[in-house]
């Protein structure tokens, strides 16, 4: 069981309540595909990913970025049971999508950086610690059902 302090709970709720999903989702996924280009292996049918500009302007990437970010909503609403909440999604990523779970960590790092840029100085060290702890639990839960 993950223990959350009051500060951590309210920080996570606030971040997601104030987040512009339509901006952050696309930016985070695009950044991941640019910074860690091997992650493009999962998006063979997304069309033009030939360079950073193409990736950042690609509507399929943008759309999927939103899907992925909204995928975090369930964890935000069920912080005391993220492992069970994501059991099905974990099976999906393992059995159907065949995603190497190390990629979850790469996307999480990019998400931290995009949220940092959006929040500016409000993304203090304590806020960063809470956000990264939350993402680490999500990442661990998504990798849990792999075998």
């Amino acid at each position: 069981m993950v223990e959350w302090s009051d500060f951590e709970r309210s920080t996570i709720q606030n971040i997601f309540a104030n987040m512009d999903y339509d901006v952050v989702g696309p930016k985070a996924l695009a950044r991941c595909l640019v910074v860690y280009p091997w992650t493009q292996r999962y998006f063979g049918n997304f069309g033009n990913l030939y360079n950073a500009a193409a990736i950042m302007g690609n509507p399929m990437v943008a759309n999927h970025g939103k899907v992925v970010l909204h995928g975090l909503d369930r964890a935000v609403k069920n912080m005391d049971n993220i492992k069970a909440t994501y059991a099905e999604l974990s099976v999906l990523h393992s059995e159907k999508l065949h995603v190497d779970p190390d990629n979850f960590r790469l996307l999480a790092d990019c998400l931290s950086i995009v949220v940092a840029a959006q929040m500016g100085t409000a993304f203090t060290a304590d806020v960063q610690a809470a956000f990264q702890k939350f993402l680490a639990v999500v990442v661990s839960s998504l990798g849990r059902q792999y075998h």
Partner: protein
Amino acid sequence: MSLTAKDKATVQAFWGKIAGKAEEIGGDALSRMLVVYPQTKTYFSHWDDLSPGSAPVMKHGKTVMDGVGFAVGQINDLTAGLLTLSELHAFQLRIDPANFKLLSHCILVVLAIKFPKEFTPEVHVSMDKFLSALAIALAEKYR
């Protein structure tokens, strides 16, 4: 994943823009690392104040960023250029090299906060590669 000519040019150009704030960046990054990855505090038990923005943290942040700036100048041969710093880290400081990527991540977060427009995905990838190459050069003399 070695640095291409484009990576080197990107890093040098970006460093030109941020060098003026190197001290702040270093202090903020180190402050963050100590909070976000508390196990890193074990290397600083000799300081009386490990809180974000404290005097020893800010001073050391500057030292570290001066090292990064020096590495930018050695970008064409990081291994040779950072030999002395590598010996320092390997034989005296003996910092577990896994920690280099923790500080690197915090540096990238600070760059995203302070330079949201300039820290584009292309700059991000080149800086990430550079900091990784720096870490490898720093770990060169460990064993």
